[in-house]
């Protein structure tokens, strides 16, 4: 996994609340048993006037010239709610999104971000709206810097906003860890736990399989 230490890029406002994972990657865009090839389908319903022909909808923010190099999304509350599909995060990552700033996230989506090297930043609604306003008023100010080591968002004017993130999540992102490998290093402890657990709850381990 690509580590996330700090990142500077263009941020695009997508301030609707409750943007769900169906909207991020519509089901019909999940065409193969694969994590790849999803970037084209990102926000497909909003992004294209004709989905099959991939005719861009000029109204949609990511299609506007100022935002062609977007790597950060500024979103409304409860971003990524709904379906658990990790495809939403794979699609965002493939499109080039490295971070999302929102007042809140769907909880499965949040975990999926951490697992895939996308930084979810939680900031108060007013702060997100202020940032969006500043950007919209000045075409030169669309860049943000995200510094995960210092837990800061820094705008073009140098103004800093600090954010909270669980240490466990920060660590995983900073180091780009293979989490399964890391957990398997705890195998001794896991085995000891399993042994006593299975003795305590033997009915969960029937020999028969109906």
């Amino acid at each position: 996994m690509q580590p996330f230490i700090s990142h500077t890029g263009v941020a695009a406002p997508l301030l609707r609340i409750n943007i769900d994972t169906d909207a991020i990657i519509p089901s019909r865009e999940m065409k193969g048993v694969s994590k790849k090839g999803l970037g084209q389908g990102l926000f497909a319903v909003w992004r294209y006037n004709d989905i099959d022909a991939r005719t861009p909808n000029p109204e949609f923010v990511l299609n506007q010239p100022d935002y062609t190099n977007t790597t950060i999304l500024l979103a409304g509350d409860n971003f990524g709610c709904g379906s658990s599909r990790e495809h939403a995060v794979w699609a965002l990552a493939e499109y080039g999104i490295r971070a999302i700033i929102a007042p809140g996230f769907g909880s499965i989506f949040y975990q999926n971000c951490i697992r895939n090297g996308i930084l979810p930043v939680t900031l108060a609604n007013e702060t997100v709206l202020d940032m969006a306003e500043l950007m919209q008023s000045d075409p030169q100010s669309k860049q943000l810097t995200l510094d995960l080591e210092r837990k800061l968002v820094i705008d073009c004017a140098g103004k800093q906003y600090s954010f909270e993130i669980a240490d466990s999540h920060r660590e995983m992102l900073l180091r780009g860890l293979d989490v399964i490998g890391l957990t398997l290093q705890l195998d001794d402890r896991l085995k000891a736990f399993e042994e006593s657990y299975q003795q305590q709850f033997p009915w969960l381990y029937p020999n028969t399989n109906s």
Partner: protein
Amino acid sequence: MSKTLFEKIWDNHLVTELGDGASLIYIDRVFLHERTGSIALQSLSEADREVRHPTQVFCTMDHIVDTFPGRGDATVMPSGTAFIQSTRHEAQAAGITLFDIGDPRQGIAHVISPEQGIVQPGLTLVCPDSHTCTQGAMGAAAWGIGSSEAEHAMATQTLRINKPANMRVRFEGELGFGVTAKDMILHLIGRYGAKGGAGYAVEFAGSAVTSLSMEARMTLCNMAVEFAAFTGLVAPDDTTFTYLAGRPYAPVGEDWDQALRFWQTLYSDDEAIFDREIVIDASTIAPSVTWGTSPQHTCAITDTIPSLASFIDENDRTAAERALNYQGLEPGTVMSELQIDNAFIGSCTNARIEDLRMAATILKGHHVASHVKAICVPGSQQVKAQAEQEGLHQIFLDAGFEWRESGCSMCFFAGGEHFGAGERVLSTSNRNFESRQGPGTRTHLASPATVAASAIRGHITDPRTLMGNN
């Protein structure tokens, strides 16, 4: 120390603290389906990792498989067959239990897991599907995860997670005539918002919950994720134990006795501290229906669509405006005057045998309005068989409903079968998001009773007008 039900389950499964705020939690059972499970299995095997305990991993075909009679691996969903066959291949290679197409146990994951007795009180169960919270109704900690986490769960039988906070939602008193668990959960989300449960494991309690059947509790917990909760759960009681006894994966004999003694300790202690508590007077809940594109856009079926001015929060107002625009509706519209084009009875929310019985009671002797396309998709093959044994399928067919094989079907759109653009669907499912049931399709959520009554009348209809002696 006093603990909540969720804390008791959590503590039983705590392998170790990871020192950075996260805990390593033991996972008893993993459920997969062909839409997201196939990728998890595939990428696990690509990484040369094995499923740690294959006997604790189960998989079904529900999302992509067709629900037309006579179905096979071919589906109307583009490239759907590849998902089905890859899932089968990976499941066999990994040695996990697969409820395949043609298996009489096949059905929607969250319907068949309780039906087979796979989810049990006190255990942890995860599935790469957001409605896994349905299974919390059995008194388990069951929650939805992403595919990468599913890989982690299968490879290590654990997950690294941060402990959610505890909320209790108490529905006290008696539900009114014609009011169901679906109306309870819609009411809750309508009142406290689609993110009201964010960050919490939500225990549903109170006299109106303990008097619900097991299946109705599943409906209630099903939409905990629509409340943004980490999961929902209900303390196990005699209703739970009676439901579970004799199911294929339920313990028997001495194991049962031992399990039962343990299950009876699974409740929130009197002194347990909830970070938040909500109390709702169950008698005030009416049959409910959604008008917009978020489950929080809910009102009583007797109500009108709220005015935009009634939304104090600007974000909420913008969202409501957008929703009404999408739905082709105006504030002030009387819900019960809304004509519908389609009626859908199905999904992991409301496609169990009691749901079908409820709908059939209303449909009996009636026919759906001539302009309404009506579809019933049982939640599992076992539900379907049971319904057929009781003759319910005949009532549905005589009323003009299609009678399908089990699966998720048109609960969600994946490029295959769907409802038309601009068409209005009254649905027993759980999501009314834009284009959820088809591009441009307008979804309204309600109980099976409401959907059945509305299908007959051709417009949204208070089911009480067609129930009992009225």
